[in-house]
């Protein structure tokens, strides 16, 4: 019998596959089998609703996408009333990604969240004026936000890091010191698209966040660096599209992984990936995820 369960710092998952924040919402429950997933992270929510950036908000890049959504969301009250009760029907771990423009915002919003498996703190969104990447670049701020959130909740706290930090290992250490149970590495990479007709940036806010296969080797390296350097569980995110990518992340040190943009290309990818991991483990005779990391094939 194959055992896909993972647990770290009070986070327990039936398998390591988590749906990432910002790429799905309730209608996806019609297509994706949520009962099969290890977990899901709900879209970045803020205290008050945010309308997000002007359109266009998304476009393709070679092997991926770039977005400038600007954290459009209906706020924490809406999440508690309209979203959480529906998600609770599924047999999967529910996490919620939170966003604030100040440390104060982060502590107030974390007070309002309960009855989930954990909070993912977003200090890494490239598409907002205040907060986001600017918080995630500075170890002192990362520490202060993590600490403020941990003080206001008894839930496990995961901090989602930005690859834009000049030293991501230092940021991960700051999150650990602040009390985080895990870090997610990482959010999108900052990028730019120019419209050659108008000779202007395509996005109103100029910068966008690059995701998809284009960022996989880079994000994988961040996971490796953090895993080597800091005693904190890492959740891998960036460019995963198939089970082999998942294996790479697990071997690099990730405890579990998140799937983002891939569901735009193939909404059935999460289920296919889980099935293929099981198939792979059967073929190799592996019984659990530890075997994947530790058994070297002849």
């Amino acid at each position, binding site marked *: 019998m194959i055992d896909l369960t993972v647990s770290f710092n009070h986070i327990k998952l039936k398998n390591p596959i988590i749906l990432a924040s*910002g*790429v*799905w*919402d*309730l*209608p*996806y429950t*019609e*297509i994706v089998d949520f009962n099969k997933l290890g977990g899901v992270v709900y*879209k970045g929510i803020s205290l008050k609703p945010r*309308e*997000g950036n*002007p*359109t*266009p*908000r*998304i*476009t*393709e*890049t*070679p*092997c*991926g*996408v770039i*977005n400038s*959504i600007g954290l*459009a*969301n209906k706020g924490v009250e809406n999440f508690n009333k309209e979203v959480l009760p529906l998600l609770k029907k599924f047999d999967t771990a529910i996490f919620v990604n939170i966003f604030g423009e100040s440390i104060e915002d982060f502590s107030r919003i974390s007070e309002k969240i309960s009855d989930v498996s954990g909070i993912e703190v977003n200090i890494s969104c490239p598409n907002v004026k205040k907060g986001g990447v600017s918080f995630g670049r500075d170890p002192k701020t990362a520490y202060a936000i993590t600490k403020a959130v941990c003080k206001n909740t008894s839930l496990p706290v995961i901090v989602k890091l930005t690859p834009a930090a000049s030293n991501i290992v230092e940021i991960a250490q700051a999150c650990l010191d602040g009390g985080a149970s895990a870090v997610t590495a990482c959010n999108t990479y900052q990028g730019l698209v120019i419209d050659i007709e108008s000779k202007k940036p395509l996005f109103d806010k100029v910068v966008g966040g690059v995701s*998809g*296969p284009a960022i996989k080797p880079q994000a994988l390296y961040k996971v490796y660096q953090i895993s080597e350097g800091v005693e904190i569980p890492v959740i891998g995110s960036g460019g995963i*599209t198939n089970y082999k990518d998942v294996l790479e992340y697990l071997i690099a040190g990730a405890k579990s992984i998140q799937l983002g*943009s891939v*569901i*735009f*290309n*193939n*909404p*059935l990818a999460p289920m296919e990936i889980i099935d293929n991991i099981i198939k792979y483990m059967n073929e190799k005779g592996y019984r659990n995820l530890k075997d994947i990391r530790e058994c070297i094939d002849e």
Partner: protein
Amino acid sequence: MASFQILPVIENRVVGPYTLLRVEDKKMHSIAKCGHFVMVGLPDSMDPFLLRPISFLSVDEKSFTILIKVKGKGTEKLSKVKEGESLKILGPLGKALEPPENGILIAGGIGIAPLYYQSEWMKSGVLFYGAKREKDLVFKEEIKDRGFIVNTISEEKRGTVVDLISENLNFLKGKKTFVCGPESMIKELKGIIGDYAKDTFVYIERRMGCGLGGCKSCAVKVYFEYKLVCQDGPIFPLHEVKFD
């Protein structure tokens, strides 16, 4: 209820400046409604990475058709899918429209596709239809055969569909009107039809990431808030839509 499937293409033919693809699907007929669309992509391919939102041209018991205008690399690849090859299809998507028995349709270019599908759900009406060239005015005969009065215009001969409407504004009186075409045309039209905008509905087009309300990329400003074209649309009341 939407589903995601890999479905075979059973016809690929050129229609005017467009490519018509017929996709075999016996189930779509019972669930697709006027206003719906599908996300379309190439199987086993990450290039293009995103699926493309494309409205139905027609749906019958055995298959449905879509019309493709080549705009970039993605639509070019889609247009080259041969009979016997397959497509990824996510759908039907969007909010269904209850079309009136009789009404006005205004189409610019490829905007004819969803309106052609809409005409299937109506008994009669008037179509105003403009395109760049005379020979681009595809499906006008078929719509005539459905009991519509058809007025066409082409830029190479006389002008745009907005010119055509300004000459025939009184047709819009007391009727529900539906518009699909480039955003520049829709904006111009809004400028000239005045109060008729209240009974006018517009098919909005946006770049989409997911088509399923997940990514929030397909926003459109309606009154003072953003709505999602893939969930709340693609059809919105013209007077409520705020263009940039």
